[in-house]
């Protein structure tokens, strides 16, 4: 303590925390900081841009109808029109899945980084690493494709395809906005769950065909986990189906239109107790279905190297990743349709913004919850995972169905 005593600084101005003050000598308020204003301008610009694009585009489903009418007016035979239209819709869905892969990986890296007070990708492409995933894809495309000597060559090559094909097919009846779906199916919910369950065959195949003990263990764990969590995932939406009275996603979407008391939306998540429980169970089961932390025991890095995709390199491996993020997107859209009112606006008077923007926004919110889970919860053990499913989740799903029946009986609506 030989140096001169520090001059006593009189602290005035806004207190940021117990020990930090806003330096009012330099900036009067946060808004006098140019960076603050620029950030706010960016944010406002992005939001307004989304609204403007939405308002200009209007309902995309109407555009689809116009496009189909144009196709039919060209005078092609009916079967050709049907096939072209089918391929067009397929391309759209695959485009959604691939674009989602590019977007979600970047977003996840940014979210994880900011949750750990890092920045995440910053240099690739210039602005906040926006091109990170594109560059990753370029690299992965040009990476050597290794098939281990111990592997079953045919199955090893086939496994990623079998994993991703049901993912693409499961997107057929998914609503991207009111009436905006590739296929209008009466049994949409059943169809989605059925195809989402098929992917596990690809995962088990990958584990088996790699000829690697870690892969095999990962594949078998995936089989046990996904098959187990199919049950609570299916049963947790039964109350929703009872309220809506249909398996058709479009009907479920429309059943949530309108408001109670003029402001509270009639979304299924706002049904007392039943809605919230259903939402929670479906969310947990969806996280487990997509093999994401805290349920990522099939690819537990500390135990199984990389689980079922240990022996996959380059594009084969990225197909598995694309599948995983595709299922995350699928679950997000399903959560939005089942519980968050689908394309309905959250408040009356906001109906001028088209439904696909609401739908995408809600799905992105749910996807954020998925990523948030991943970087918050520690991984469960295998036995804890199974106990949680069979001894807690499934019984409560049944209880929830009973509760939903009680509510319907008391209301006497059906």
């Amino acid at each position, binding site marked *: 303590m030989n140096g001169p005593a520090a001059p006593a600084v009189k602290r005035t101005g806004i207190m940021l925390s117990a020990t930090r003050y806003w330096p009012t000598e330099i900036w009067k308020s946060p808004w006098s900081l140019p960076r603050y204003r620029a950030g706010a301008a960016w944010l406002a610009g992005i939001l307004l841009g989304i609204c403007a694009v939405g308002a200009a585009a209007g309902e995309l489903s109407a555009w689809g109808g116009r496009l189909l009418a144009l196709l039919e007016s060209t005078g092609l035979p009916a079967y050709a029109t049907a096939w072209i239209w089918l391929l067009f819709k397929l391309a759209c869905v695959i485009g959604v899945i691939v674009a989602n892969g590019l977007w979600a990986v970047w977003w996840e890296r940014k979210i994880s980084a900011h949750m750990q007070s890092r920045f995440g990708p910053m*240099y690739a492409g210039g602005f906040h690493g926006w091109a990170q995933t594109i560059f990753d894809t370029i690299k992965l495309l040009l990476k050597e494709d290794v098939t281990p000597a111990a592997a079953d060559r045919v199955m090893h090559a086939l496994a990623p395809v079998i994993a991703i094909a049901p993912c693409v097919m499961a997107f057929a009846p998914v609503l991207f906005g009111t009436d905006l779906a590739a296929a209008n199916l009466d049994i949409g919910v059943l169809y989605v769950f059925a195809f989402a369950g098929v992917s596990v065959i690809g995962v088990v195949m990958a584990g088996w065909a790699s000829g690697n003990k870690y892969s095999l263990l990962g594949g078998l764990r995936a089989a046990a986990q996904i098959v187990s969590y199919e049950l609570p995932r299916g049963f947790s939406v039964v109350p929703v189906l009872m309220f809506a009275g249909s398996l058709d996603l479009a009907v479920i979407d429309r059943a949530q239109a309108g408001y109670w008391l003029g402001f509270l939306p009639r979304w299924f998540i706002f049904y007392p107790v039943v809605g919230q429980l259903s939402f929670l169970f479906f969310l947990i089961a969806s996280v487990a279905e997509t093999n994401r932390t805290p349920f990522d025991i099939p690819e537990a890095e500390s135990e199984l*190297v990389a689980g079922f995709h240990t022996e996959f*390199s380059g594009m084969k*491996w990225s197909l598995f990743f694309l599948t995983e993020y595709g299922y995350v997107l699928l679950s997000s859209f399903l959560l939005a349709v089942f519980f968050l009112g689908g394309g309905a606006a959250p408040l009356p008077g906001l109906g001028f913004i088209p439904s696909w923007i609401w739908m995408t926004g809600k799905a992105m919110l749910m996807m954020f919850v998925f990523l948030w889970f991943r970087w918050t919860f520690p991984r469960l053990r295998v036995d804890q995972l199974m106990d949680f499913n069979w001894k807690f989740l499934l019984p409560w799903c049944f209880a929830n169905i009973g509760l939903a029946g009680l509510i319907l009986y008391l209301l006497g609506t059906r």
Partner: protein
Amino acid sequence: MGIILDKAPMIARPIPGGQVLLTTADYFIDLGRKYSVWPLTFGLACCAIEMMVAYAGRFDFDRLGVIPRPSPRQADLLLIAGTVTKKMAGPIQEIYHQMPEPRFVISMGSCANCGGPYFDSYSVVKGVDRIIPVDVYIPGCPPRPEALIYGVLELQKKITRMKLAKGGGATHQQEKGSRDLAGSNA
């Protein structure tokens, strides 16, 4: 594309604008590889502590697109962070051969560069470059995370000089083809 050019380098010449096409392709491919260097989660000794710090908050490797992968099949970079003992030499060679091309090796710290303080030891390999080809050497005992980041930046510079056509290759592997290297001397 690289394989085609390896086997028949003459096909690019008669195509009009073929060389320009190649250069443009080179640019984008190198950009992709440069910003997507995924190292293997692999630490050997005390340098691994500095490596972990480089991934974490203050230094944040993820800014450069460097994110660790647990399996060598998905890794591009083998970061030799620490002392390479003779007993570990075999597994390191095996990991290196498990990695798909193009693959890079950074030797981090004195021990991995040349044996360091264990030069006279009976049990330490005197430099990891005696068993696998190395792209970038980082001196230090252990190097600070800044030094490691500088090493990765140098590797990125090296990657930008890679060419699809052989001959102008930047890395040892590109020029020689590390699959052909007689790696096993144990």
